């Protein structure tokens, strides 16, 4: 009897162990799968963003190197026409005006796509230029505080620039703010970026996974790529504070 009981116990124990191993195997497989899915998702986003930035740079290069100079040449040639007729003068002036508008739009479009300041002079110069422009032409007054961030790679600088650009766009579109402060707090391990506005704010619960605006999604994707964190602090009537931590 004793040996019979022992046998049953051993059988149960073996059964439990086998079940445990199977369960463990499943859990590990699921975890692995999940990790792989996350990694795949991250890689996909990175690939998408890289392609996007590359494509933007290519379009800008085409605009800068081909269309712009060509239009400038056409404008100059048009202006070197010498005609005694008053009507022709008016026509030339009108056509030049249109060409000026096209050239201005080319500059604006290429600046939106990839600011020259960002590739030539880096993050701070690009930010200052864009802020100067907005301070003059929009109802929002932006102030950049402590503008000495640590040295980042070119890619990271583009991400940080785009994140700030997206937040500014969101603020202009939805917040009705008049003031915005962009603060950079560098430390030995990370850059903390604090962006606050005095706008209308919003209910955080209004943001659900399905309902996240494209702007916010873009911000989060870029922060994820840099292995950083975003904290959003806002409520109706209280303005919005984004805190973004980017590891060095």
């Amino acid at each position, binding site marked *: 009897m004793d040996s019979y009981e022992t046998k049953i116990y051993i059988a149960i124990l073996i059964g439990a162990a086998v079940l445990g191993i199977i369960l463990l195997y499943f859990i590990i497989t699921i975890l692995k799968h999940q990790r792989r899915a996350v990694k795949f998702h991250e890689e996909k986003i990175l690939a998408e963003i890289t392609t996007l930035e590359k494509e933007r740079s290519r379009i800008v290069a085409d605009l800068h190197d081909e269309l712009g*100079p060509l239009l400038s040449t056409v404008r100059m040639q048009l202006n070197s026409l010498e005609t005694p007729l008053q009507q022709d003068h008016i026509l030339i002036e009108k056509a030049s005006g249109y060409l000026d508008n096209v050239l201005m739009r080319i500059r604006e479009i290429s*600046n939106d796509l990839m600011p020259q300041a960002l590739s030539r002079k880096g993050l701070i110069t690009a930010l200052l230029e864009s802020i100067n422009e907005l301070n003059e032409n929009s109802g929002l007054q932006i102030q950049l505080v402590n503008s000495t961030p640590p040295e980042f790679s070119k890619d990271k600088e583009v991400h940080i620039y785009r994140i700030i650009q997206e937040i500014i766009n969101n603020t202009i579109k939805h917040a009705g703010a008049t003031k915005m402060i962009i603060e950079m707090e560098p430390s030995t391990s990370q850059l903390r970026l604090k962006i606050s506005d005095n706008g209308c704010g919003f209910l955080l619960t209004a943001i659900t996974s399905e309902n996240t605006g494209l702007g916010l999604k873009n911000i989060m994707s870029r922060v994820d790529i840099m292995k950083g964190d975003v904290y959003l602090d806002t409520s109706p009537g209280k303005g919005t504070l984004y805190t973004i931590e980017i590891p060095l």
Partner: protein
Amino acid sequence: MLTGYTSIKVAIADDHEPYRIGLKTMIGKSAEIEIVGDAANGRDLLRVIDEMNPDVVLLDILMPVMDGVEVTRHLTTKASSVKVVALSMFNDDHLIIDILNAGAKGYLIKNATKQEILDAIKAVYYHHTYYCRSTSMKLARLIANNQFDPNHKVEKDIFSPKEIEIMQFICKQMTNKEIGDRLYLSTRTVEGYRQKIVEKTNSKTTAGIVIYAIRNGIYKI
């Protein structure tokens, strides 16, 4: 050109050929201007300047091989008498700041009229400055925001604080070893810095560094 007074000798640099040729034709018609040469990049322009000795250059900023800022900086450090008018498709703040800090005396965007271009050439030839309307407005704002200093000596900020310190020690006739001891650096590191300074100042010898430092207010005597 045959009007009894000397014409202003002008060279043009722009990497876009149709624009360069168009510009040549347009301003070449003016009696007061003589186009003495043109180039598709900065390096070729320096060659043209050496050979033809122009009074004024009309210079595109973004060019391959050697851009407009580098050319201007080179001319300024060599104390060349050639006056630079930047002619760019863009009026981005950083381009204006860079080229003016490098030593350009005029800035036009490419939709400038023939008259504006001629005025700019004449203004810089007679030691004045000339900025087109949109650039003037930007400059006023940049100066007001302390982002641009019109009295800025040539490109001090192309040197790191350490390089400036080492240049000042060089001017005090200190040896590499003495500088190293003073700054807690190895002699080899100081040599590295000295080499960088030689490159940045376009000089060949220590005397060149000293002249550059004094001329640009890095070392005061």
